[in-house]
């Protein structure tokens, strides 16, 4: 099992080295398949490792694999250690599994691109970094992966770097992420100062001895970590980079900006769950930020014309749901939604990619419509994903989202208000996803005459179908008790946070216990959440199920709100005005005035003074030998007089 775990990391790394060495020399097919197979092999290794781990007992404690000593100096000792427990098991399976499918898909999607080899190198590097992130046993290792995925995200968003918009989007993503990372580092420093270590398990284990529950220290530290998470997971106020990130190739959006990287923040909070449970204030903040993001992004998603932008804001919104679950104290449910989201949102993006591929790189839904008959497989799979996203029973998203809404109300840290916010977001979800389906696949065709849509090659459709199966059925691993299931996945992940709940008894209840208790409430809420999803569908049908959906109903009904939604509620403009431009102006001022005028002015001024003084003294040098001789004689006489007197 330990070997398998090491291989999980090694295979993507082999892919990177291979890509760097041969990416430009070998034919596309070879490069694509070898890179994909590296991820496939990593998936198989992950399966072996996870089976081996479950073989030890599904409720067992995690296994650590020490690789080498990374930093050791003075009191700082950081090992490169891998940690496999239930939480990281789920994560590595999702990352390598979905990652493998997306790699295979990319072989078809990226066909003919001049950067084909480069693309797969980046993707392998990304997978490696992401695995490091979820497997790292210390915060420092996690952070290496954290920044590593940020780097790959930067490179892949700006993959078509000759487009100014792509290059700018990549930079924006990295810089905004860095803001979160700065907070993350601050949190790590605080943890190190208090605990003297960055080993996650050690921190969690000792947290109750070192920190006072609900105290200032733990609240500040968890808030800082959460700010880091908002950067990576695109939550308000740091969500602005994700929609721009859609400049990258679509498989990238599917893998990085839907299925895996953006969920790293959720993973981080779940991983440090013990600390977060000790800080109720932080949990409320997490829940509120999540709920708010879910709603705001839901609104924005409704008003986007670009198919990928809709999905991008949908991702932001769904991540908000996950944070809502975390904030409610239901960590395993958040991770459950992370998993189902990886299936259906990855699928939605790949489907969108297939549409874009078919539409000769057009992404504007105003030029689509009626694509169902041209793209039957894409349509079917995206429909499944859409149903899952909307939360229609019994697709995967239904189970996880329903559970989030339930936990938001009844979870250890839940509150009916959280539920209400989540409910609004759930309706919005229904609206925007069915709007997308209506405008893209259904209704009459608005496709320009020069575009001839065609179904994508099998390398693209097969991954779609596999993901569709997962999106449809993946939720059953988390079938709740009230429906006769065992909530297996929640229990399973709960074991990783199991150490959590045992340690935290003093602080609060336990997600699963709450679940056991309120089955009546759960049934009611479940019915309500189905109704919410159907409401969303009903509204979308009313607005878009017409012959010609344009101009859109909400646009004519509430033009002011619609404009704000189209403009993403002016977040970018606000940041630019309040932070970006003043900072640039200040920097310019520092350089042009302070550096050049004040400091250098002083220095050059000192030089000037010296020169002036020297010129003045140089005036004594008349260059006339006679005068010198006279001065000398005069001096000698004066000296003589002085001596004689």
């Amino acid at each position, binding site marked *: 099992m330990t070997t398998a775990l090491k291989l999980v990391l090694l295979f993507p790394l082999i892919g990177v080295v291979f890509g760097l060495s041969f990416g430009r020399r070998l034919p596309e097919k070879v490069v694509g398949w070898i890179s994909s197979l590296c991820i496939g092999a990593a998936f198989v290794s992950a399966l072996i490792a996870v089976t081996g781990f479950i073989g030890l007992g599904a409720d067992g404690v995690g296994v650590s694999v020490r690789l080498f000593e990374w930093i050791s100096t003075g009191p700082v000792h950081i090992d490169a250690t891998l940690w496999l427990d239930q939480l990281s098991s789920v994560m590595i399976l999702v990352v390598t599994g979905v990652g493998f499918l997306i790699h295979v898909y990319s072989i078809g999607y990226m066909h003919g691109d001049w950067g084909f080899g480069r693309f797969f190198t980046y993707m392998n590097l990304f997978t490696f970094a992401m695995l490091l992130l979820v497997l790292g046993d210390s915060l420092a290792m996690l952070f290496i992966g954290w920044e590593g995925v940020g780097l790959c995200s930067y490179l892949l968003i700006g993959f078509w770097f000759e487009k100014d918009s792509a290059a700018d989007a990549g930079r924006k993503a990295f810089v905004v992420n860095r803001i979160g990372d700065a907070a993350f580092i601050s949190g790590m420093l605080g943890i190190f100062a208090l605990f003297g270590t960055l080993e996650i398990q050690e921190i969690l284990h000792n947290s109750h001895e070192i920190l006072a529950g609900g105290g200032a220290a733990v609240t500040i530290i968890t808030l800082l970590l959460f700010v880091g998470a908002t950067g990576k997971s695109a939550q308000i106020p740091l969500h602005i980079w994700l929609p721009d990130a859609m400049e990258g190739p679509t498989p990238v959006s599917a893998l990085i900006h839907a299925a895996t990287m953006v969920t790293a923040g959720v993973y981080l909070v779940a991983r440090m769950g013990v600390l977060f449970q000790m800080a109720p204030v932080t949990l409320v903040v997490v829940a509120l930020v999540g709920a708010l993001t879910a709603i705001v992004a839901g609104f924005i998603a409704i008003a986007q014309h670009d198919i990928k932008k809709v999905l991008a804001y949908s991702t932001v919104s769904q991540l908000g749901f996950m944070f809502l679950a975390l904030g409610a104290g239901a960590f395993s449910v958040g991770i459950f939604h992370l998993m189902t989201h990886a299936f259906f949102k990855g699928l939605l993006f790949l489907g969108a990619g297939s549409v874009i591929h078919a539409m000769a790189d057009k992404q504007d839904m105003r030029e689509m419509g009626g694509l169902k008959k041209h793209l039957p497989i894409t349509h079917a799979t995206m429909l499944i994903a859409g149903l899952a996203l909307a939360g229609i029973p019994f697709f995967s998203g239904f189970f996880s989202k329903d559970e989030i809404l339930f936990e938001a109300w009844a979870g250890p840290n839940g509150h009916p208000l959280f539920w209400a916010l989540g409910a609004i977001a759930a309706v919005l979800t229904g609206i925007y996803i069915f709007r997308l389906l209506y405008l893209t696949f259904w209704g009459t065709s608005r496709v320009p005459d020069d575009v001839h849509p065609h179904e994508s090659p099998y390398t693209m459709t097969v991954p779609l179908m596999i993901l569709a199966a997962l999106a449809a059925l993946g939720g059953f691993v988390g079938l709740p008790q009230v429906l006769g299931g065992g909530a297996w996945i929640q229990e399973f992940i709960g074991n990783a946070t199991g150490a959590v709940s045992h340690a935290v008894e003093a602080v609060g209840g336990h997600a699963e216990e709450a679940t056991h208790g309120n089955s009546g409430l759960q049934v009611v809420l479940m019915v309500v959440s189905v109704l919410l999803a159907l409401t969303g569908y009903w509204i979308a049908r009313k607005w878009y199920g017409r012959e010609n959906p344009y101009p859109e109903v909400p646009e004519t009904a509430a033009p002011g709100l619609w404009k704000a939604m189209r403009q993403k509620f002016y977040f970018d403009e606000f940041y630019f005005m309040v932070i970006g431009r003043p900072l640039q102006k200040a920097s310019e001022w520092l350089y042009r005035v302070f550096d050049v005028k004040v400091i250098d002015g002083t220095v050059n001024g000192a030089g000037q003074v010296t020169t002036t003084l020297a*010129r003045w003294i*140089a*005036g004594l*040098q*008349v*260059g*006339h*030998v*006679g005068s010198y*001789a006279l001065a000398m004689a005069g001096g000698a006489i004066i000296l003589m007089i002085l001596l004689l007197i």
Partner: protein
Amino acid sequence: MTLTGYLILSAILFTLGVLGVLLRRNAIMILMSIELMLNAVNLAMVAFSRFIPGLDGQVISFLIIAIAAAEAAVGLALVVQVARDRQTVDVDDLTLLRG
């Protein structure tokens, strides 16, 4: 003759030298005046050596003769160069080093 006589002679010669340096414009004349000053000192030294026991004065006068020779050699060489270059040896015209 007494020491005073020599010293007076020496002083007169020295003063003539100083005046020459101060009043003459011709670089060669200035050099000659400097030679005159040096020799005035030589005279004083030799006189001291004659009237005060010991060879100090003679030793110093030898040193001065050597220095005077060196000075004349370097100085005249410079003057020759200047004359070639500038067609004049008038020191009032040589003011390149004015600050």
